[in-house]
């Protein structure tokens, strides 16, 4: 979407134009949902939180100042919602049982080939890698998963991550590094079939 189109859309959103809002949801729902699945590790939770994200967007559109892209602003709201949900889950005690989806994904991610990182791109392999990464992500703790998603999915700078998480700069660096090592190790295990 070019800037002018986005400005027009925002103007319509500020008028609480429902058709414009429908357009916005359909435009961004895959990205928001993907982000939330990565952060929460549970598709049903992600669907629930994603709906709340768009409700917040609808209510808070007047506070969008336009100094970033609309998608960035929406992703930030999604990140905040995900963090709140994780905190809420933490207070209530995490699910004793892993969600079915995780179990399914892990099962489907069980490698049948020993392929690893350096083979040429191939659709099947890409899907396999996607499953492995999601399964590996699910094994990180909440903070590690969040840092990986913020950096490697949302491409936020360290400074932005610092602002969002409240962690000191050095802590962001070291924890992100540990998170990536943990992700890499789990990814390697899944790829080799040694969960």
């Amino acid at each position, binding site marked *: 979407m070019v800037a002018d189109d986005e400005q027009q859309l925002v103007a319509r959103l500020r008028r609480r134009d429902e058709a414009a809002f429908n357009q916005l*949801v359909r435009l961004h729902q895959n990205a928001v949902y993907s982000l939330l699945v990565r952060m929460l590790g549970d598709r049903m939770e992600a*669907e629930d939180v994603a709906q709340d994200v768009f409700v917040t967007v609808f209510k808070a559109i007047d506070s969008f100042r336009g100094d970033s892209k609309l998608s960035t602003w929406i992703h930030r709201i999604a990140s905040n919602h995900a963090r709140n949900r994780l905190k809420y889950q933490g207070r209530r005690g995490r699910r004793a049982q892993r969600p079915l989806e995780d179990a399914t994904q892990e099962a489907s991610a069980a490698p049948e080939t020993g392929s690893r*990182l350096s083979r040429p791109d191939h659709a099947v392999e890409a899907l396999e890698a996607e499953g492995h990464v999601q399964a590996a992500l699910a094994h990180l703790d909440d903070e590690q998963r969040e840092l990986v998603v913020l950096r490697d999915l949302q491409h936020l700078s*360290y400074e932005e991550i610092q602002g969002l998480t409240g962690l000191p700069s050095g802590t962001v660096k070291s924890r992100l590094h540990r998170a990536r090592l943990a992700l890499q190790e789990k990814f390697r295990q899944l790829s080799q079939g040694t969960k």
Partner: protein
Amino acid sequence: MTPEQTRQAFSAAYDGELTDEERRAFDATLAADAELSREYTAFCAALSQASAALQEPLDAPDLLPGVQQRLRARSRGRFYADKFAERAGTGPVGPLAVVLMLLAVVAVLSLFVALTGCSTSGRAQASQPDAGTGGGAAPAPAPDDRDADGVCDGTELLIGSDPDTADSDADGLPDFVEAASGFDPSDPDVPGLDQLASLRAQPNAILDFELRATADGMGQGHTGLFEAYETLDPEGLTARDYFVSGSAVSAEPPDNVRDVQPGAERFGAVTGRTRLTFRLRFEYHRDAAPGCVLGYPFRYSLKTDDGQRVASRDFLLLVLPDGASPEYCLPLTCV
């Protein structure tokens, strides 16, 4: 930089977050240590692949209907009050949905109530606790039901609803309807509009209600299962009494299933994440129509061939009498 310090800097180096001075030291260490250099190369390769995989967008379910429903509930109908046609799926009849929301309140209540209480007057007394005239049929709420919604004040405290508000979560369904149907009367998001099925109380009226379930298939067949909850209907009716048949309709993506067996409510050999659509047919086969809206909760589940229930969801069948604005049936005394 020591080798360990260099390892700790892998991420920052990969992200270009090292200062010029740090970068020079980092590069110098790698240049002098071939093993460390290979380690860094492997680290970058793994991270690149993981990042690339993370960029793959997932297909979201259609979020719009749920978002609209939340906005409508939270704005108390100011937004999306007439946009039910936007709903995903073909759940209850679109144009009826608004009416449904109004009617639903009366419906379940009447289950609870003796039909004698509301069937002739068609009036619940959520707003008129003492309106017991006309046919002498209107039920009178118990004295300890301040909001006259059929749920006693003590019960409301127990279940967390507001004893002074007949519809605590302002979602259009009175507390009694939700509580009697197994939904949380304090949560505006349940039941969702796609969980309401409306059947006209006219002889031979048919409702085809479509619902969707998502399966993460591993090659097994998936079969739908309809189950009716017990109700407080004085005649002992449940959703089963209106249910005619269920059928498997379609799968998305279609290639994820081997075959669709409509009459058996079954999809054969489901592989991968697949959205399955079922159609439930209900029929009103009685001669007389109730005077107020009746509600019958039911559950629809997805089972795999080995009998494992992999998904289930609750719904509410509303039986709607003709009339401009029928209300939900209320119990004669609060519960």
